[in-house]
C-alpha cells in the first residue's frame, strides 16, 4: 500500500513510528541476570540448549541494571532482599519491564510467613505474571511472548 505500490520494488517499507519502535524494543530485550531461588534454575534451563531464549532476542543476561531492559524476578523475595530489589529497579533505565516468574514472586507462593514478601508487586510494578512452581521453560517463554504482545500494543501517549 502507499508509496511502495506506486514506485515498485524500491526496497522501501512504510510503517508507523510506534510499530518500528516497538519492534525494536521487543526484538532485543536484554534481561537482568536476577535469579533468586529455584525459578532461577528454570530460567537458566530456558536460556540454555533445549529451550533457547536467544531466538527471542534475549541472547545475553546483563548483570548490571543499567544496561538491561527486562527484570525477571525469578524466585522468592524476602524482606531482607526487598530493598535491594527496589534499588535495582530504580537503577534500570527507561523503558523497563518486569516479569514476575513463579508463584513466590507473583503472590508469595507456598510461603505465607514473616520472611517472604507476598508478591513482588508490593514493591515494584509488574507487567506479566507467570505462574508455576517453578514454571516450565515453555511457560516462561509464553510469558515473554505475552510481554512482547503487550509491548507491541503500546502507543506514543503511553511513553510520555
Amino acid at each position, binding site marked *: 500500500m502507499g508509496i511502495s505500490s506506486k514506485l515498485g520494488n524500491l526496497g522501501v517499507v512504510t510503517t508507523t513510528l510506534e510499530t518500528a519502535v516497538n519492534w525494536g524494543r521487543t526484538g532485543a530485550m536484554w534481561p537482568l*541476570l*536476577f*535469579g*533468586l*531461588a*529455584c525459578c*532461577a*534454575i*528454570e530460567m*537458566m*534451563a530456558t536460556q*540454555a*540448549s*533445549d529451550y533457547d531464549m536467544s531466538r527471542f532476542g534475549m541472547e545475553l*543476561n546483563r*548483570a548490571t541494571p543499567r544496561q538491561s531492559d527486562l527484570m525477571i524476578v525469578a*524466585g*522468592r523475595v*524476602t*524482606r*531482607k*532482599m*526487598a*530493598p*535491594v530489589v*527496589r*534499588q*535495582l529497579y*530504580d537503577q534500570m533505565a527507561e523503558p523497563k519491564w518486569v516479569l514476575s516468574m513463579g508463584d513466590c514472586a507473583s503472590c508469595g507462593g*507456598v*510461603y*505465607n*510467613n*514473616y*520472611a*517472604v*514478601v*507476598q508478591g513482588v508487586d*508490593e*514493591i515494584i*510494578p509488574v507487567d506479566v505474571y507467570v505462574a508455576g*512452581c*517453578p514454571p*516450565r521453560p515453555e511457560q516462561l517463554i509464553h510469558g515473554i511472548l505475552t510481554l512482547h504482545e503487550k509491548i507491541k500494543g503500546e502507543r506514543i501517549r503511553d511513553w510520555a
Partner: protein
Amino acid sequence: MVTKDIASQGEKAVETTWEGSVEELRGLVSERALTGETMLLNMGPHHPSTHGVLRLLLELDGEEMVTILPDIGFLHTGIEKSIEDKTYEKAVPLTDRMDYLSPLSNNAVFCMAIEKLANIDVPERAQTIRVIMLELQRIASHLVWLGTGALDMGAMSVFLYAFIEREKILTMFEMAAGQRLMGSYMRPGGVWRDLPAEFFPAVKKFVEEFPRAIEDYETLLKENPIWLDRTQGVGVLEPDVALALGVSGSSLRASGVNWDIRKAMPYSGYQNYDFDVPLGEHGDVYDRYRVRIGEFWESLKIIKQALANLPQQGVFRTDNRKFAPPPRAELGHSMEAVIHHFKLWTQGFDAPDEEVFVAIESPRGEISCYLHGTGGTKPRRAHFKTPSFQHIAAMPAVSKGHLLADMVAIIGSFDIVLGDADR
C-alpha cells in the same frame, strides 16, 4: 540500613546504602581497614558469580583479599518455622525448596527423620527406588555445578553441554514424580508412586549415553591450560582445618579425608552397592573438580546396580495404613481403608515427643535433619543443618591471601546454593 517495612512503602524509594561505619566491624576486619589502608568492597547480593543472593564484604589490599565477611539471609524463607505449622506429610513439599538443586535429597532426609521418629518401615523396593532417584539427582546437581562453575570462569560451552544432559534427567523425574524439579517424590514410608513403565528405557538409554558426555566435559576442561591455571593451587583447604570447620561432602574428600556417609553410615540400602569414593590430594579447586567428576562415574555404577537389583515384587510405600494412605481402589470396599484415609488426610499421623537426628550425603555435603516431635501430628522443631551453610562459613579461612578473581573460583568450587544456606 535495611528496613523491614519496605513492603509497606510501595513505590517510595528507601535508603538502601549501608550507612554503618567501619567502627561496627572492629574485631571482624583487620586494623588496617579502620585507618583506610585497605579497602572494603561489597560483592553484593546481586552479582553474576555468587550463585545466588550472597553478600560478601571483602577487605582488599590492592587485589589481594585480607578478610572476607559473608552476609547471608537474603533468601531466608522461614521454612523451618512453616514446617512447625503443618503435619508431617504436608511439610514434605516445603523441604523441596531448601536446596533447590537437589530437592530429592532434602525430601529424603526429612522423610528418613520422620521414619526414624515414628518407627515407620520402608520396604525394599522403595529403598531401591530412592537410591536410583538420589543418584540421578546427584548427577543432575553436579551438572549444574559444572555448568555454572565453568561459566563463571569463562568456559561458556560447558554450561550449554551440561544442560543438555540435565534436561534428560529432568524428563525422567517428570515421568516419575510429575514435576521436573520440586517433585516431592519421597514420602514418609517410601515414595509417592511407583516408577512408570516408560521410566526404565529412559534410564537405560541415559546410562549408556552419559559416559560420552562426561568425556566431552573432560575434553573441554581437564587439560585446558586456562582451567588449570585458574584452579590449581587456588583455595587450598588442609584436611585438619576442614574437619575443624565442619566442611563435608566432596569438598572434604578433595582434601583427602575419606568420609562418605553412604559408606560410613549407610542408609536406604547403600550397603548393598559396590562403588568407590573418589579422593583428592591437595584440597584445591582443581581437586574438588576432579572429585565431583569422579562422582559422576560412581553414580552411574550405583544406578546400574540398583536397576539390576530392583525387586520386582514389592510395594513402593509402607503397608502400614496408620502412616501411608491406602490405594484408592481399596476405598470402594473396605471401611478401615476409608477411616485410615480420612484420619490421615484430616489430621495426619502422630509422632512421639522425642528427638531424632538423621544425616545423609547430599550432592553438596552432609545434610542433616534434627526432628523433635510433640506426640501430636505436627512437629515441635525441624532443624536442617545444610552443607552450604558451613561451607560459606568456611570460605574466609580458605580465601585469605588470594586475589579477587580467585574468589569466583573458590565460591564455585564449594558448590553452594543459597536456598540451602538460608532455608
